[in-house]
Structures are given as structure tokens and as C-alpha cells.
């Protein structure tokens, strides 16, 4: 089974919630945490571990055998990304940055062998053991590459492949289709938001996405003393979600963040808040020990 931690906008403390919740949930489930914020993965930094067991994510990229190509232009016509341009005589050229690796060009090319399967490195996935009793899978997009989707989907597969009782995904910010990909198959979404106008605006979008995907959501309000939690409750209610925790702005959390020591393992009072969130999740999911 899978749950997701997501947040409308960046910097709401989504990753802090994800790693602390993972540590707390470890007592109940055999789990894996997957960091699917592939443009800026940070869970390993918060957990104080170095990424290990790197695997490349390579995408198909057409290479043309100009000896065989008949310059029929079919490949260029089919490419939705307009990644193939043709010269006046029909000779195709690839603009690698635009190519999504979908292989539609290869499928339509009428001449066997005119399009060869080249490969392009898009990023990596990692599988890192943590000192907290669960592994972390991380997806990381290569700088200069534009397409996050293949990394998200590969990292998720790698995490699913471990066959754990619980897969916990930490998604990117926002509500684009890479976030939906990460959320897909979740039994529950924990939406982390702030009670500021910006946080509320973006929090509403993630609840909307959860609703569209038919996944129940719970809301964690971070830095809850920065604004009006009542407004967050209103929005949550509109989307049938419940506000399950309010985490006030805390120097302790910042300190633990800076030191790379998850707060849930400390004696600070905030540790209790994360345990509380964990027990709400366990209650919802059932099972566990």
C-alpha cells in the first residue's frame, strides 16, 4: 500500500514532515520512503545520508541511419514534441533537448533500421539505507534535462520493487502531472500547507488534485502560528479533508533541520506532534503492529 506526502508549494516543510513521519511510521510498518521531488530531492540531506547504489535512467533517443533513411518525413510529422526537424530534401535531424524518448518516430518509420535506438541519460535513481530502519529511494533529474516524468516513474518502480508493506512517497511541489504520477495509487495524501494566503492558495490546488484522483486527504498545517488556520480548515472542509495537525513555527525544528537530526527522535515537544500524525495515519490505514 502507498501513501503520499505532498504540498502545494515549495518550502512548506513537506520533506520535514515526510522524513519524520517515515521514522515514526517505521514502528508500525515495514516501509520504504521514496523521494520523488526529482528536480530538488532533499530527503537524504534531512536524513543525513549519502545517496548510494546509483542506477542510470536512460531514455530512447532516435539516431538516424542516413544510408537507409528515405527522407519521407514521417518521423518528423508524428513527433508531438517537434523534436525532429527536416531539411528541404526531407533529411531528419533531432533536437535532443526536445525529445521525450517516447519512440513514436521509431514506430512510424517505414524503413527498418533507418531509426536506431540511441540512448540519452536523463538522471538517476538511488537506493540508500538509512540508520532509521528503512531504505530511501531517490530520483534525481540531471541538470539541464527537462523531463521529470521518466525519473519519477522509474524511481517509483524501484521503490515498489522492494515489496515493502508501505511505500511512502514524497512528491514535488505543485500539481503538475509528475505530481499526479507520484500520487497515483495512494490510499492517502498528507497535504502539508501553511496558513498564509500563499500556502492556502497552493494547498487548495493539491486538495483539488487529490479529489480529482479520488484519493482521501489529510492536512498538516506547518508554521501554524503564521496565519489563520481557520481559513485552512474551511478549504479542507470544502474538499472533505481534515486538518490533523498544527505545527507551530519552531526554532527546534529549524535547529534539528540544520543539524540533520530528525526532530521526531529528539526530546523536543515537537516530536510528539509527528507521533500524533503517525498514529492518525495508522488509524486510517489500519494494519501495522
Amino acid at each position, binding site marked *: 500500500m502507498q501513501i503520499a506526502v505532498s504540498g502545494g508549494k*515549495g518550502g512548506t516543510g513537506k520533506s520535514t514532515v515526510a522524513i519524520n513521519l517515515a521514522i515514526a511510521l517505521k514502528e508500525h510498518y515495514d516501509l520504504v520512503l521514496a523521494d520523488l521531488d526529482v528536480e530538488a530531492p*532533499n530527503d537524504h540531506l534531512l536524513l543525513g545520508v549519502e545517496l548510494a547504489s546509483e542506477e542510470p535512467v536512460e531514455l*530512447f533517443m532516435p539516431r538516424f541511419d542516413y544510408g537507409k533513411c528515405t527522407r519521407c518525413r514521417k518521423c518528423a510529422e508524428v513527433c508531438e514534441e517537434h523534436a525532429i526537424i527536416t531539411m528541404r530534401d526531407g533529411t531528419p535531424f533531432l533536437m535532443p533537448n526536445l525529445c*521525450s524518448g517516447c*519512440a513514436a518516430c521509431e514506430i512510424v518509420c517505414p524503413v527498418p533500421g533507418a531509426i536506431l535506438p540511441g540512448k540519452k541519460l536523463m538522471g538517476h535513481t538511488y537506493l540508500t539505507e538509512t540508520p532509521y530502519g528503512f531504505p530511501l529511494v531517490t530520483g534525481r533529474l540531471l541538470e539541464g534535462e527537462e*523531463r521529470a*516524468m521518466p525519473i519519477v516513474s522509474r524511481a517509483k518502480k524501484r521503490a515498489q520493487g522492494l515489496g515493502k508493506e508501505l511505500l511512502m512517497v514524497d512528491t514535488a511541489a505543485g*500539481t*503538475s502531472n509528475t505530481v499526479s504520477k507520484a500520487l497515483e495509487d495512494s490510499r492517502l495524501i498528507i497535504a502539508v500547507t501553511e496558513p498564509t494566503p500563499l500556502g492556502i492558495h497552493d494547498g487548495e490546488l493539491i486538495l483539488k488534485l487529490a479529489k*480529482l484522483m479520488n484519493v482521501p486527504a489529510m492536512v498538516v498545517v506547518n508554521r501554524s502560528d503564521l496565519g489563520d488556520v481557520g481559513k485552512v480548515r474551511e478549504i479542507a472542509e470544502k474538499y472533505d479533508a481534515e486538518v490533523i495537525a498544527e505545527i507551530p513555527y519552531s526554532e527546534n525544528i529549524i535547529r534539528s533541520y540544520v543539524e540533520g537530526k530528525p526532530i521526531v527522535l529528539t526530546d523536543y515537544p515537537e516530536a510528539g506532534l509527528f507521533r500524533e500524525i503517525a498514529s492518525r495515519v495508522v488509524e486510517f490505514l489500519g494494519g501495522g503492529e
Partner: protein
Amino acid sequence: MQIAIASGKGGVGKSTITASLLYLLKDEYRFVAVDADADAPNLDLLLGVERWEEERELIGAKVARINVESCIRCGICQERCPYDCIKVIDGDYVVSELTCEGCNVCGLVCPVPGTITLEEVRSGVVRKTMTRYGFPLISAQLDVGRPNSGKLVTEEKEWAKKLMGELGLEHMIVDSAAGIGCQVIASIGGADLTILVAEPTPASLSDVQRAYKVVQHFRQPAYLIINKADFNPGFTALRGWAEAEGIPILGEIPYDRAIPRSMSMLKPFVEAFPDSKAAEAMREIAERVREEILK
């Protein structure tokens, strides 16, 4: 001149700094501001924008649809979809609209002609307004579940360029998207320089280093602003990195509760709390931007 402001990831105060910088430069320079974070735009909120003067829908995203009537349930489309977007629900093959990338591979491999069609859908809106501060703002909002495409940002920048021509503006200041994906590439590409914003934490350093690689890819000069500079005194790696890379530091802003408070007031912090420590630091930064960048 086109200036991009980037951080590699949200949450380090990039947009609040951008809003305050725009506020401090508004009397002296004529510019258009662009909020390129179409996935989670917020510059409009920080600038107290209440309504849009003009909105354009952006139709461009494509999603596949399967006609259950003619589908023979062979499963080839599901097998071949490069992004695993086709599911079987109650025996029917269904495209998940919220993850489909619109590549049409399924349509090409489907043995029953006409069963899979590629339909154009709205990917979001691009919109324009004149802020109460006298400069125009172009912003966009991606629809939920659409590909996070750079096209929206490109569209925004084109509109901004047109406005520059019409209104005789000299500069475009682009608040770049978070991350390093296509929206960021579209935000930074074409700029003359990028101002990076980071805070002294390992996570922010890692994010800004990745954004800097995108900047280098475009062979642009970069500058750095350090936010919450006093928040982690033992952490010198951010400054060390900037020095080693030869990235000039435009200034440092101390951690100041005036910033989150100003956000709730929907005002740039230099306007809401002009006497705060953060505002003072921001004015020095604006001064350096005037002297070293805008001249």
C-alpha cells in the same frame, strides 16, 4: 535587459525577495515582471493583485482518449505507453488524463484504427495586470495535472516582450519556477543574467548548485543573494561555494519575522516593514543591483 531570479527550489524566499526588489526598483526603472512559476504562482499575491485585466487560455496540452466501444482489449497500448499511463478499470482500458504526456504512442500501436484519439486540452491560463505599483505583471496558472511544460513560460515571456515594445519598457524581471525542469530552463534561457537566491542549509545549497548548472549551460553570469543568512552560523559552505565559483554575492538578508508577517499582509516586506533589518539589507542589495547590473 532580461533578469531571471532562481533558487533551484521553492521556500527559500525567492518570491518575497523578488517582490521587494521590484518595489525598490519601480520608481527608477521601467520593467515588466513575469511570474514563471506557473505551477504555484505567488508573485501576484505578494504584490496584492486583486484582479487580472486580461486572461488567455492556453490550449496545447494533449491527452489520449480510448473509445471503449471499439477497443478490443488487446492491451498493446498499455504495454507500449512509455509513461505507464494506461490502466485497466473494470475491464476497460483507460488513459489516466492526469499523467498522460500526449505522445500518441498508444494511438500508433493500437490495432483498431480510430480507437485512440489525441485530444487537445487546456493546459492553463496566462494573464496580465497592472500592479498598484505601476509596473505590469504577467503570470500564469497551470491546470491541475497537466504536463509542467515550459511552453507556458515561453508564452508568458512572449507576452512580456510584446508589452515591453508597446509600453517602451527597458527590462524584464522573471521570477523563475522552482526546480530545474522545463519551466526553469524556459525561465533562465534567454535571460542576460540570473540572480540566485539561497539560504545557508545543505538542502538549499544542493538546490542552488543545480540551478547554477542550468545558468552555466546558458553561459550567463550569476549573482547570489543569501537569505536567512544568520540562521545557521556554522554553515559556511554556501558562501565558500559562491566564492570558489566566482559568483558575486549581492548581499545577505538576516532572518526576520517581518518577512512572513508581510506575506500575510500581501505586501513586499520593504513596504510593510521599512524599518526592519531585512528591509535595510534589501535596500543595500537593490543599490548593488542598480550599480552593478542595471547601471
